[in-house]
């Protein structure tokens, strides 16, 4: 394909005593060089994109840490989400019933629907999501849940410590399903 012609033109006069020189082909096939060139280009194209620093940030609002914020909200407008181990999510609406009848379990994919249904059925100023991570959940779970808040445009949410009762409930549910 690519060639460099370095034969330099033939037709030198034959001097005396010079044997008949065999004209060897000096054509160099440069196809592999161009292949390498393209390989290097694609490599650098891809690495340039990847070297962008992890440039996103998840901003936690100030009201995360103010406990007085939660008291002013109607209990019926509250959706509590608990994060357990192995990416499990448990939730209940309002307050936890003594017999735990409203304690439900879900996972990260379905929780979005739950949040949306609850959001649609509640007055915007009463709708609060309380996130309670337990000690077995991972950082990824917490960030994903906070991400869900952004995705679903939840204006008020808070991260709170999980209570013993709820933790027991999670343990029991996980013990049953294991």
């Amino acid at each position, binding site marked *: 394909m*690519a060639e460099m012609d370095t034969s330099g033109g033939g037709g030198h006069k034959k001097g005396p005593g010079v044997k008949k020189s065999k004209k060897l082909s000096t054509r160099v096939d*440069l196809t592999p060089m*161009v292949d390498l060139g393209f390989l290097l280009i694609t490599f650098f194209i891809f690495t340039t994109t990847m070297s962008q620093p992890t*440039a*996103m940030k998840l*901003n936690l609002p100030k009201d995360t840490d103010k406990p007085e914020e939660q008291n002013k909200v109607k209990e019926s407008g509250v959706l509590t989400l608990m994060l357990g181990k192995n990416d499990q999510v448990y939730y209940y609406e309002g307050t936890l019933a003594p017999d735990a009848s409203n304690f439900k379990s879900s996972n990260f994919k379905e929780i979005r629907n739950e949040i949306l249904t609850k959001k649609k059925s509640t007055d915007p100023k009463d709708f609060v999501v309380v996130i309670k991570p337990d*000690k077995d959940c991972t*950082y990824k779970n917490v960030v994903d849940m906070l991400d869900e808040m952004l995705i679903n445009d939840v204006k008020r949410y808070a991260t709170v410590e999980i209570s013993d009762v709820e933790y027991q409930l999670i343990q029991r549910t996980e013990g049953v399903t294991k």
Partner: protein
Amino acid sequence: MPKVKVARKSTSIDMTAMCDVAFLLLSFFILTTKFKPSEALAVVTPNSVSAKAAPENDVVLITIDKAGKVYLSVSDKNTNEKREIIKAISDAKSLNLSEAQIKAFTRSSSYVGVPFAQLPGLLSTPVDDLKKIKMDGIPVTDSANNQLVDWLHAAATAFAGRKMELLVKGDNDSKYPSFQGVLNAFKRNDLLKFMMVTNPEGVPKGSELEKANRDKPAVAK
């Protein structure tokens, strides 16, 4: 048999031009590639739809690795603040750090991941040996001995008046107690606004956020 024979022209194309363009492109990309600074702490951060860029200056970065160990570092440009921080810690904990150890902390890309007792030792290790030593992380899980509180207090004082960005960079698999310890340290220092470093992720289709973004014109970053 047609009488007119089409003269056969040569079909070989001279590829020199294409070669030239290829090498020009290559040189362009070689010169514009910025390699990520080799991180001493490998952390896989989670994804997020948040579209704000992480700040690079005036940053106090708290890294939580896979095992839940907590490390603290300050952005390289803030050498003065770094100096004040390490001096404050040295005074508060009676560590009597020497000038060489203070210099070790103000060095660029330095980070601390040890309890105060081991801090002088850490700051005395030469740069080349740093990668080999195993750090246990700043203790945060025990609320009685949450050393991050002291570090953050020193940082807040050093940055007094100026804007200090708090960045948390956690690994996906780190368990919640470490993160909770970090959050408690923030609360005890009254630092309520902080950011978490994430990888960018596309907004899911049909979600509320996507609709909100469509209705709102683009906000300048």
